């Protein structure tokens, strides 16, 4: 999945000459937490978060005396350089950028110019869709050998029953790295024939035994 498919295109941005007050208003009005700062040609030169803005605002206890602080310009408090992504980057890579840099938002730029924005929330929504939990399905987890060619072997068994696979996830089997677990979400109310087929072919179906519970 590409960044351009999940990014928001109508981005609220400001310039370094805008005031902290303007940023504060926009953050509250639109329920957002980040504003990219651009120059007159829409090149991204910085970013401010709600926390930057709050840090630069007078405390609630001394608001009356210090309202002048809000007239300061954003250029003074914006973070730079900004980590950005390209519309043709992978959405999944963006998740690792969030994780590694401990940030929650990246502007999307083409030729350095702002074309979109991705937040943590967009990322989570994408992950929900990738796991397929938002469409009708039954979930099956199969423990398989961690070796090349195993996925087509397993899906062939599913193909026999003409069940539509709505999503596939693969993750390591923690107790033993020579195995992994494939999670299928298949569009059927009656997964029993498929499960039987998988067992007949020698696969271990981990579904849906709870730890410590016999089927």
């Amino acid at each position: 999945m590409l960044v351009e498919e999940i990014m928001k295109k109508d981005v609220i941005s400001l310039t370094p000459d805008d005031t902290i007050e303007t940023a504060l208003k926009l953050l509250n009005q639109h329920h957002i937490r980040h504003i990219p700062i651009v120059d007159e040609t829409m090149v991204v030169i910085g970013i401010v978060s709600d926390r930057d803005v709050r840090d630069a605002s007078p405390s609630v206890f001394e608001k009356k005396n210090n309202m002048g602080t809000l007239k300061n310009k954003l250029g003074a408090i914006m973070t730079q350089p900004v980590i950005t992504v390209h519309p043709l980057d992978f959405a999944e890579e963006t998740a690792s950028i969030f994780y590694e840099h401990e940030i929650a938002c990246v502007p999307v730029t083409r030729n350095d110019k702002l074309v979109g924005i991705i937040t943590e929330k967009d990322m989570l929504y994408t992950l929900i869709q990738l796991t397929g939990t938002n469409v009708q399905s039954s979930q099956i987890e199969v423990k398989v050998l961690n070796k090349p060619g195993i996925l087509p072997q397993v899906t062939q068994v599913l193909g026999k029953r003409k069940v539509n696979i709505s999503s596939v996830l693969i993750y390591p089997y923690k107790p033993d790295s020579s195995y992994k677990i494939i999670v299928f979400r298949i569009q059927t109310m009656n997964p029993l024939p498929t499960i039987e087929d998988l067992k007949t072919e020698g696969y271990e179906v981990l579904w849906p035994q709870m730890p410590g519970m016999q089927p």
Partner: protein
Amino acid sequence: MTCNTGFVYADSVTSYRFKDDHPFNQMRVVLTKELLEASGALESTSIINPRSATDDELSLAHSRKYIDAVKRAGKGLVPGDEGLEYGIGTEDTPVFKDMHEAAALLVGSTLTAIDAVLEGKVEHALNLGGGLHHGFERKASGFCIYNDGAVGIKYIRKNYNYRVLYVDTDAHHGDGVQWAFYNDPNVCTLSIHETGRYLFPGTGNVNERGLKEGYGYSFNVPIDAFTEDESFLQVYESAFKEVVEYFKPDVIITQNGADAHFLDPLTHLCGTMNIFERIPALAHELAHKYCQGKWIALGGGGYDIWRVVPRAWSQIWSIMQGLEPFKGKLPDQWLKKWQESSPVVLPEHWHDPADSYKPIPRKQEITEKNDKILEKSLQLIHNQKKYNSL
């Protein structure tokens, strides 16, 4: 108190049949009816002959294009790919001859039950052939072609303008009905089902609460796999009582899937006959308390058609009439007649013996988890109560 009650039934209910080895088998309705007759609890005067739903009625909840596709599929005129677009011709809902007619009869049976109650001919009515809660506006799914519950509720809204509470105790989430009324504040849906973590359709989370004007009128209690009687009933009673008090419906429709039983092959809940006695008993009590008795009960899932469904569904009828639940031995006549056809040994008693299944090792944890889920599900009602009392 005895109640005037209607049993909607036609032998042709079995014409809704995908193929021989398909788990959805309407023979269970016949088995239930005969069990009731053999028990002396069902008189021919209580039986109401159903009609079929018209295309206009079906189109209250289904698109014309879809109805047309189902009609053509039943005549063998829909190629595979076109059928798949409508969810027809899959493992779950294969094409069968005259499938439109068979499915329209199930919907018509529910409309017959609704009219009988709302025109005041009977206080309650039962249509065991219905409860096909997975059907969508333009898609068949989960063994359901047309969604009789959704059509029925639209029909009530249109013709009677009543506020409807729909309570679904099938082990699978009542998704089709929920989505059909997701932004309607005059229809409240409550579904108690096994968590969608592994089980079809995977939806029915506590946070599915409705949209726009309908926000706060969808309730879901996804209970854990291996839940047993006590926890199931605790959740069911609390949720139903609180939701009915909050919503104050004019009429109650219940979907009575019998697949939360430990013998059911498609689910992982561990209910026994006890829950199938209490489920209709509470619905009966609350229908009288809030809706002047107006209650329509539908069937639903139930895939152990020999050992589970006939006993479970018979109890609905007994309780609906205001009688005591059946106890003791099943009638010999019924056992003798059907043991021959049954691939499994039929139970001899109405109730399951105490040690029918292996003890569930994590019972306490499961109970605690279900209590938490219930609390989350009803949070909105609790918040409102708190706010109103301030």
